């Protein structure tokens, strides 16, 4: 009797399952093939190559720095967007999302356009001894540009989830807005800041097109993968790619865990 309980699903249902399986295979097949292609020995050997370790380290360092800059400048802006209503707010939000849609090499070219010597800003940077082209500074600038929207949007959502009444009560008890932010808003929003930080880092660490324009050297991991592929072919680029993917997957699963276990603020 119980067996009839599984009501027969219609053809439409099986059609959606079929399409879903195709999509799943399309995403998972290349990734599993990539991860299983190099032997363990090759993976270990790759890790002993100081260039590889340096490039992955540089990728993590520059992506982290970009996320840190986003945290410093983006947090107050996210708070402003979450708490205030003002004219032009939608325009401002659109501008913040712009870096998401700009083609990646164009981002690099746009940044070099202001950093060049025939631009006022470029001259100022030159006199200060700051170099964008081919420098770690340049890489961080580019990665901040592509990662910033992800940080701001995540943290804005986080701030919107905190009742402004908590801040009102804090101020009525004598705390200034600065004090209120550091004693109430910040401790309650740190989780969304971590989420924003990870999303920003993940986006930054996977960037290639913008970085390769601004700085082929020093070499971040995606550029090194590209170079190995161009110079030695698929087989020699795979082990580096596996290591970089693993870094990204760790970030991704930490992010998922944080997002799914997210408690509601009362």
């Amino acid at each position: 009797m119980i067996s009839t309980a599984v009501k027969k699903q219609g053809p439409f249902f099986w059609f959606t399952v079929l399409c879903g399986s195709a999509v799943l295979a399309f995403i998972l097949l290349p990734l599993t093939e990539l991860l299983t292609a190099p032997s363990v020995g090759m993976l270990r050997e790759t890790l002993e190559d100081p260039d590889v370790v340096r490039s992955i380290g540089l990728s993590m360092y520059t992506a982290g720095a970009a996320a840190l800059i986003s945290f410093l400048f983006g947090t107050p802006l996210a708070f402003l967007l979450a708490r205030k209503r003002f004219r032009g707010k939608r325009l401002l939000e659109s501008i913040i999302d712009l870096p998401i849609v700009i083609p990646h090499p164009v981002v690099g070219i746009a940044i070099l356009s202001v950093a060049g010597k025939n631009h006022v800003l470029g001259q100022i940077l030159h006199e200060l001894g700051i170099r964008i082209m081919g420098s770690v500074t340049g890489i961080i600038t580019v990665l901040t540009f592509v990662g910033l929207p992800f940080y701001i949007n995540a943290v804005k959502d986080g701030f919107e989830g905190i009742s402004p009444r908590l801040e009102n009560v804090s101020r009525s008890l004598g705390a200034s807005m600065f004090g209120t932010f550091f004693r109430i808003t910040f401790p309650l929003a740190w989780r969304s800041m971590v989420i924003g930080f990870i999303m920003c880092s993940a986006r930054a660490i996977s960037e290639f097109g913008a970085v390769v324009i601004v700085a082929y050297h020093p070499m971040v991991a995606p550029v090194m993968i590209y170079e190995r592929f161009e110079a030695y072919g698929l087989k020699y680029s795979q082990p580096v790619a596996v290591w970089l993917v693993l870094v990204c997957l760790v970030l991704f699963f930490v992010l998922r865990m944080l997002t799914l276990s997210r408690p509601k603020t009362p």
Partner: protein
Amino acid sequence: MISIQDLHIRLSDFSLGPLDLVIPESEFFVLMGPTGAGKTVLLEAIAGLLTVTRGHIFIHQKEVTYLPPEKRGIGIVYQDQALFPHLTVRNNIAYGLRYHPNRQDRSGESMDGLISLLNLSHLMDRFPGNLSGGEKQRVALARALAVRPGILLLDEPLSALDPNFKEEVRNALQTLHQHTQTTFMMVTHDFADALSLADRAAVIHNGRIEQVGQVNDIFQKPVSGFVADFVGMKNVFHVQRKGPKLFVGPLEIHLERPPAPAKAHIAVRPEDIVVHTDAFVSNSPNRFKGHVVRVLDQGFMYEVQIRVGEVNFKSLMTKPSLFESGIREGDEVFISIRPAAVHAF
């Protein structure tokens, strides 16, 4: 003491004022009114959380109209308690003390007093998430009063609570008001709370005060059709005078005593309009024949609307009595109203 003069607040979708109000020192004042009347707007303006468009707010003779909230010495307690979820009860209550160093020495004492008064000592190391609604609201009260504010604003502190917790917090409010010098200003839409707690009250409507005075007076002697309706007098009519007689439309209405000439309205509570199905069983001078135009379900009761000529009366019947009488829409019925039940204003 709170003194509000010519207050105007313009928000994108609401405007309040002009509004004048004086609340003496240590009073328990209640603000009543329908949803959207501006009760919370007024409270947040007094607390400094909203920008005032025009007018003045004085606290203890000192103008505070443009002071930031942290400089006003006004406590606020919200319906949803707004406890800091990442702090223990102890740290919630002590939160404001560091900003009041001159009160710190006394505050230690005062905090202990508050904690025992509100029976919170066993909860001090718990986090707000684990407390019941009533416990949360008591912690919110302790937190607001720990810094000894001159004024305590309460935004419907009872309405989100379960009935049993409601009683607990109502008692706490009563006790606290007796034990402190603080002026309490509470928003509520519950008459029982207003009657049991407040000295005076105001009814606010569309951003203006309709009536202000003793709670009993507002309930028994409404000065306007809106207040009459708000306190549950659902039958409000304009009356015409023909000599000594009073008419609502074509119907002559008898009162116990003839009203003063200035009074142009009468009001009758719906429960004072008795509906009969058979014939004139009442000997009231106010007896009319009409028909039922609508029966509205109102949870425990039915509102029965009866049209007599051009005049609509609203009567309140319990579900069983409606069922037993068999009254349905369209039926012909008879209504009677005792003269003593007719209020003029």
